[in-house]
């Protein structure tokens, strides 16, 4: 019934193309790295100052000077380069990164994203999220279709403070894949077990259904 987080990550990995420079957000988006196809060459950027991010280290290779943007210990690859935060965000804000995959709390039908702040709760900060959504060429969101209370996260307008305005291109949820198009969202794919009725029930945003809708079957 619907996609798991790992299955959403696997679907998101299909957004990657050969030669892409990609920034993966913290949380579910990091799982995308486990699903990159063998026949494409992708370079992962970590916004604290690294291109060519490798996997987690073996226990005896842990290096305190080598972490990713989630502050996890990682490794370098033969292609790796290191740079300052200013150069890192020049890559991001200058439109040099091809794709950013991030999580979100809410998305609006015009592609606004809210993922950094819930009023009344302690705000930890936006980190690099506002720069990523404003600067990266293509922004793909992975998120649960509804929140823990079962309320829609695809809304007419975000209720939470925005991270960015009209900047999301595609949304991959537990129930399917949507594109942000001129007059709202467009449902392109249905996850296994998801139905049009279920999507309608759990979506507040205005959306249309693609003529060539792909209904995925359970693997």
């Amino acid at each position: 019934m619907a996609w798991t987080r790992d299955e959403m990550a696997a679907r998101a990995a299909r957004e990657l193309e050969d030669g892409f420079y990609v920034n993966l957000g913290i949380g579910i988006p990091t799982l995308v790295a486990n699903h990159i196809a063998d026949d494409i060459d992708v370079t992962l950027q970590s916004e604290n100052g690294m291109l060519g991010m490798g996997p987690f280290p073996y226990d005896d290779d842990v290096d305190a000077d080598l972490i990713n943007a989630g502050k996890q210990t990682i490794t370098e690859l033969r292609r790796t380069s290191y740079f300052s935060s200013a150069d890192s965000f020049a890559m991001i804000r200058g439109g040099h990164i091809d794709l950013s995959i991030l999580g979100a709390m809410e998305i609006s039908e015009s592609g606004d994203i809210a993922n950094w702040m819930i009023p009344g709760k302690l705000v930890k900060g936006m980190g690099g999220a506002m720069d990523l959504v404003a600067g990266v060429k293509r922004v793909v969101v992975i998120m649960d279709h509804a929140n823990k209370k079962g309320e829609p996260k695809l809304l007419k307008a975000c209720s939470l403070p925005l991270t960015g305005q009209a900047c999301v291109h595609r949304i991959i949820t537990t129930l399917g894949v949507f594109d942000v198009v001129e007059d709202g969202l467009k449902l392109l794919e249905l996850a296994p077990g998801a139905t049009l009725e279920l999507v309608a029930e759990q979506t507040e945003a205005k959306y249309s259904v693609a003529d060539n809708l792909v209904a995925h079957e359970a693997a």
Partner: protein
Amino acid sequence: MKKVFADAQAALDGLVFDGMTLMAGGFGLCGIPENSIAALHKAGVKDLTVISNNCGVDGFGLGVLLDAKQIKKMVSSYVGENKEFERQFLSGELELEFNPQGTLAERIRAGGAGIPGFFTKTGVGTLIAEGKEHREFDGETYIMETGLKADVSIVKAWKADPQGNLVFRKTARNFNPMMATAGKVTVAEVEEIVELGALNPDEIHTPGIFVQRLFVGSFEKRIEQRTIREREVA
């Protein structure tokens, strides 16, 4: 002019005062000036405005200054890692100014380069844009952000030579090079000071003009999230 000092206390001597603005390098606990932070704690200087991407953790990094209530205001992009921060912020003891991480990096770079302001798309249409000048360039809206400077910048590098030329190591570089440019006085702590001529001039990350004082520190290099993989058994 001699740039090399015996330790953090000697290097910071005469530079610190209550109410000063401080820049502190590092991302999380990676590449933070541990020794200068400890010396500032010992000096007891207070009402600090601290510009740093994060604020350490409870009991380590900038968390030490926070625990001792030496910080009046933080200018950061992400501060979620300490309980004491939360307590002081919620009780109104601590001011906080959030900046998107790239905006923060660029504000510091601009400050150090004599650029008082610049326009960016980051934050347009969000709370960050409120009260800021908006301007259109080629049909797109941008907001104005201002450059940042500090009375003192404390940075951490891997190696230095006696001229203050710095080389950083891996992702411990982060905010350190820009902060070195934006301090009226920059104090660098390093793991090793090598002989003049031992660094390849083509591979120097921060030229010595940006560094006024330096010393060799001792580093704990605490790790926030130790993530590992298992070795496959053949």
